[in-house]
Structures are given as structure tokens and as C-alpha cells.
């Protein structure tokens, strides 16, 4: 199945990835080829088969609800590209 340029741009918008026109063209072809290979799954009968999200059954793993120290503020901010007065600075959401 062939993905249209509009579909590629729509997926890129959902994924928040800015693509150049050349990338959109290339990805359209590549993704279409890969999706074609997925069609073999349609030949497999999965009626009444439950999905597996994770290979070994571990459910509701709990730990005691105890307080413990968190990381130091300065450590948390260490890698932030923009910071100010102990906060991470971002662009205004509203103009």
C-alpha cells in the first residue's frame, strides 16, 4: 500500500517531527515498502487469540508507600537547555 505525501505529513505532525520535502518523499516510498511486508500478518488466523503486551506475566508489582528523598533541584536542572531562577524556561505558549 502506498502512503500519500499528505499521509506522511500527517503522521509527521502527530509525531512532532519536522521533515524536509526530500524526507517526506523518501519516507513515503520506504514506509510503503515496509507496510507491504506487513501484509503477511493478514493471512494468520488470530480469532480468539488474546494479545501479548509483555512476555512474562507480572501484574501489579507494588512497593511499600514510603517517603524518600528526591533528587536535588540543581541536579535535575543540570541538563536543561534553558533555565532561570530554579526553573526550566520554555517559550510562551500564548503569544
Amino acid at each position: 500500500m502506498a502512503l500519500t505525501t499528505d499521509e506522511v505529513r500527517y503522521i509527521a505532525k502527530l509525531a512532532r517531527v519536522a521533515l524536509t520535502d526530500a524526507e517526506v518523499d523518501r519516507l513515503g516510498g520506504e514506509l510503503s515498502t515496509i507496510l507491504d511486508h506487513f501484509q503477511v500478518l493478514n493471512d494468520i488466523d488470530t480469532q480468539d487469540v488474546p494479545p501479548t503486551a509483555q512476555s512474562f506475566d507480572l501484574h501489579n508489582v507494588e512497593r511499600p508507600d514510603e517517603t524518600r528523598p528526591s533528587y536535588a533541584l540543581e541536579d535535575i536542572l543540570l541538563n536543561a537547555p534553558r533555565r532561570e531562577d530554579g526553573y526550566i524556561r520554555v517559550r510562551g505558549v500564548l503569544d
Partner: protein
Amino acid sequence: MTVDLDRTAHEHAACLRAGDYTSRALTEATLARIHAQDSDLNAYITFTDELALAEADEADARLRSGDPGPLVGVPVAVKDLLSTQGIQTTAASKMLEGFVPIVDCTVVRRLKQAGAVIVGKTNLDEFAMGSSTEHSAFGPTRNPWALDRVPGGSSGGSAATVASRGVPLSLGTDTGGSIRQPAALCGIVGLKPTYGRVSRFGVVAFASSLEQVGPFARDAEDAANLLGAIAGRDDMDSTTAPVPVPDYTERFARGLEGLRVAVPEAFFGDGLDAGVRACIEQAITDLAAHGAIIDRDVALPAASAALPVYYIIAPSEASANLARYDGVKYGFSVRDGRSVEDEMAQTRGRGFGAEVKRRIMLGTYALSAGYYDAYYLKAQKVRTLIKREFEAAFASHDVILTPTSPTVAFRLGEKVDDPYSMYLNDLYTIPVNIAGNPAISLPCGFAQGLPVGMQLIGRPFEESTLLGATHAYGEVTEWHRRTPPSLA
């Protein structure tokens, strides 16, 4: 006694305990060699000389006090996907260049507790997405057996530095074959543990339901000791299993007699290189000659659908995991966009490489409205069938034997522009991650002068069986002792 860097980790450990040389001497010699080799190999993104020498001095103090740990004072390299406190962790991506974690991941913390000396962070495909280590923002790693060829991937740096006798041990991660395939292409041992056996806390996330950290080594004993040091329940990763960690050398004395080996014909189809096939057939003959019971009447039909299942599930999980790279909290950040959303999209568009973007797009598509049932849910259902098929095979067999990779190491550039052909490298390793079982790749011959690996798959949490069989095979063959043409 002089430091001989061709020794295995357990041989070094014996020399260190005997006082033949110190960990500092071993570490200095190791650092000199890996620095010198790296102009050819590009196996490292970051060298950690200062940390390593400090750890070596601590290890020497532990050795003087009689600490018998198998890793005390032994040099280890770790894939640059593992967070290291105070040392940049890049995932081989421009997105994380300069990122300095504030904590160690659990496996690195355990390595330090075990007294290992961490000498560097190894190269990989960006965010562990790839099978050749060509998708690295820091340039490709080269195969020590032939410098014009890839080492495999994504843990190519970790495999290449062990194969070239730079370090005796390293850690990689394996989401679809990223430990086993480079181990095969570099002629060493690589083990993917059972899902849930090793903590993923602090490992840069790619596909959370599939990936595990595991060891590279030159023999079974070293792999067993390294796995023993990192395995086990971790409060910081609730997917780690509450299963006791055994002594992974416990099956070494058992040999091959009576080992029930399934050889599924589905893994010997079109696309398997004739030279690789010949090596695997010889290995099967050798195993049988030493008492293994070979069963070739084993069908794993659903496993042939594992590749599309993987390329739906892994990119879907990746598209969610990589949503965190927004240029706000850490990492690469574009600051001159038109709006918040534009800056985020520009950051991700410029920070991620081509293969990462391809997978984010694929995963976003598979999870998007209207396609979720057809792709993601369908893949999860087929995943159940693959898992059941493995369970059925293990009712009457101890291990499943397959080639690790369909070919020997290919040339740099040969497959990098053809994504689907690159994906086919992991045809035999991917079903194992889908099912969650442990598997090992071990050297079993040479084709075109390049190493060939055989994969043994085991029951969940029975890594000891795989390591025992690898040890026994290594006792009757010499493939794992071959050395690549000398580098620096």
C-alpha cells in the same frame, strides 16, 4: 609477570588475585590499547580514563584485602545507551550529545559494586536502532576481522572492542538481536537474557517490552560471571522478575551428553548464506558426535511472521518512548522556531537521524486512529502465537539451535540505503525477543574468512543451560580462540 591483554577476564582475575600484576597496570595497558585501536575501529564514543584509574585503585585495595569476586579489577566497556553518573551518555544521537546523567543505571551500579573497571562507552546505532552500527551520529564502527566491514549492531562497539582484545568483557543491549548479531559477526559470545532477568533502569529506552542488557565475552565462563553480576530483581524496574539468580556456571560440568536440541527448518530457508549454512551443519554434526540429541522435525511456522510483528511492536514502543525528546528538559534544543510546537518539531527533525525518524514515523502510523487494530493489536496477537509455539517446542527440547545471522559481516554502505534489507539481518534473532526467551550466540566457524555464529535459544530463566552448552562446545572446538588480524 607482564600484562597480557589477550587473556580472558577469568584469567586476568586469577593473575590479579595471585598478585602477578595490579588492576592499575592492567587498566593502564587496556586504556593504551583501546585508544590506539580506535583510530581503526571507532568502537568508543567516550573513554573514561579518569574514572577507570580511580576504580582500578579501589579494586587493588579490594584485591589486597582478599576479595575473591570474579570481576574485581577487570576492565569492562559499556554501550553508550547505559546511563553513567557524571559521564556523557549519548545513545549515539545528536539528540543527547553532551547529556550527563545524574545517576548510574542499575547494571552500571552493580558492575561498580562487583569491582569492575569501566574504561569507556561504546558506539552503537542511534538509540539502538540498526544492525550495523552505521546509524551512529559519531561515525560507524568497523569490524576487527575486516576493517571495510560492519561489526553488526546495534551494539557494534561493544562487540568490536571485545573481538579485538581491547577489553575482555562488555555490555550491550538486545531488542531484536543487537547483542547476538554483532557477537556472531565479530566471532565472540553474546547473550540476551530472558526478558525481566536484568534491570532496564537507566537504560535509554527504545522498545520496553523487548529489550534486555546482556554480556559480550570470549568464552562462556566470562559471560556467566558478567551476567551473574548484573542479573536480578531491582526495585527501580518493576518488570524485573522475582526469580533467584543462580551461579551461571552451574551446568559447566554437564557436557553435551543428552542435550535435546531442536533444529527448526524454518530458520534454514532462502536468504541463508551457503557458507554460514555449512558452518551450522558442521556444528550440528559436532554436537551430535558429543552426545547431543538432534531433532530436525520441529516446525515453528508462526516464527516466520516475527519480522513484521517486530517492526510493528518495536517502532510503536519507540514512538512512545522517544516522545520525551522535546528539547525542553535536556539534550539538543532548537530555540529559534516560530512557536513552542515548531521548536519541538524542529528539535526532533534535526536531532534524530534517518533511521530513528523512520521508526518513529512507522510506530506513530501503526498506533494512529484507524490503524491500531490492523497493525498494533494484530501484531500483539501474533506475538501470542509465537510465544505459544516456543513453549510447545520447549516441552520436549532443552535448546533450539539456529544460525544467528543469515550472512557474515557485510561491507560498510552495502545495506544502509535499503532499510528492509537491513531489517532482514535480524530474521533469526527477532522471534526470541518477541517470545521473551534467553538466547546466546557463540562462534562456530568461518565463511569467506569471517566469523559465523550459532544461536542457542533456551527456556525462560534457563541461561545456565545455554552457557553450559556454550562451555561444552568450546571444550571440543577452537573457534572461540581465533584472533582477528592484529590491530594496534
